[in-house]
């Protein structure tokens, strides 16, 4: 009986420690801006339903973003984005799988703002490319906020910007990530 109780105790404990290891969100905010310098209109969009999971123990971090979830000011821009540029029916998701390089220097049990370096692979429009980004992790009230800014070059992901719209749509997109993660309970 004692042994069983002990076993249950160990399992529960393991489960609890496990739960604190991982953080996640399904309502992460990712914005992009691809406005060309002299464009009369802003080419930008926000996705407020990005999924992000962080394993604090190993420093692994992964994002998944539904391309159709990007909202634009103008419906036509959204249609063109999905139909002509990222081809959302063919490639519905953009996924990033990476690693917080300096994970050891981050104390997830102590509140604070920690600079973070992330290295990994971004898969978008069927193309996978290496991606490095500098950002920060903010530990506060049991949550971890991930924020980062970086740029992607459309051509690297085989997304072509026709000459006709080159004065409006830039060749690179500035991406900013702002996700507030909560502990993942199993």
């Amino acid at each position, binding site marked *: 009986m004692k042994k069983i109780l002990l076993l249950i105790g160990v399992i529960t404990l393991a489960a609890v420690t496990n739960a604190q290891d*991982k953080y*996640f969100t*399904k309502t992460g905010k990712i914005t992009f801006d691809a406005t060309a310098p002299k464009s009369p209109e802003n080419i930008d*969009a*926000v996705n*407020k339903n990005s*999924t992000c*999971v*962080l*394993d604090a123990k*190993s420093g*692994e*971090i*992964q994002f*998944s973003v539904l391309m*159709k979830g990007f*909202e*634009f*000011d*103008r*419906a*036509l821009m*959204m*249609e*063109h984005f999905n*139909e*002509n540029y990222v081809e959302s*029916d*063919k490639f519905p998701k953009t*996924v990033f799988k990476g690693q917080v390089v300096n994970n050891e220097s981050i104390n997830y049990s102590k509140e604070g703002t920690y600079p973070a370096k992330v290295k990994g692979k971004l898969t978008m429009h069927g193309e996978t490319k290496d991606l490095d980004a500098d950002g920060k992790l903010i530990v506060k009230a049991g949550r971890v906020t991930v924020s980062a800014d970086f740029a992607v070059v459309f051509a690297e992901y085989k997304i072509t910007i*026709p000459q*006709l*719209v080159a004065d*409006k749509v830039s060749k690179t997109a500035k991406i900013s990530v702002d996700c507030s993660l909560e502990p*993942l309970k*199993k």
Partner: protein
Amino acid sequence: MLILCLCSQTVRAQEKDLLDLVDDGKPKKEIVKNAFKSIRVINGHSMEFLAPGTMDFRILHRFGQLNQGSKNFFGLDQASMRLGFDFGVLQNLMVGVGRSTFKKEIDAYVKYAPIRQSTGYRSFPFTVAFVGGMTMNTMDFPDPTAKNYFSSRLAYYGQAIIGRKFSEGLSLQLAPTLVHNNLVPLSTQPNDVYALGFGGRIKASKRMAFTWDYFYVANGIEKGVNYNPLSVGVDIETGGHVFQLHVSNATGMNERAFITETTSSWEKIDIRFGFNLSRIFQIKKHKR
């Protein structure tokens, strides 16, 4: 051995996709969009809807007959036009008004889709939409001394659209239509005309598509007087505009006109060049 087992277990757990941990695995219901580039196949309504808060400003031109030859620049010397304003109200509801040169006719319609083609959870294979519209001829009555009724100016139409985007490249639709003319020019002509529309699109590239739009008119066709309208063309999308270039035997640009009053025939190459120009404006800012 046991330790080894446990270790390998942990290692495997480490390699596991983190995203799988939070994936609920249920594909969400998603409406299939962009079966057609525009809200009209060419002449007839398409299964497509405008996004809520947008306005489609449409300029339609139909030129003279191609077989007039070079003297009339293959028909381009003459043009008949329609200006139209279409508004997206809800995802599946839109309204529109237009005015045509031909018979100085004003037309208006409401288009609603109770069912739309979708994928994922509770998906449905095709779109069903209904269109109700009316037209009003605003020309002077030919005989002002006769007893003329306002209702004589009016005609109505009702249409169902059953359409499916089979793939990125192919969309097809059927459109059974009833046109009711309050006044017909000849006593032999029926007031109620039944027609069945066949519309389709084959996408050639991301920004170009081949389209066709045919109406089989079941009654009221008199050989030598009127014909089934057939239009074939290409849709070209350039940033903010959609150009629909086509050739057709129809001059009319509303349902009453092109279904009941197409007076020329493909057989004699009595066809015309025409274009629809569509420009979509965002009139209500999308909140995000």
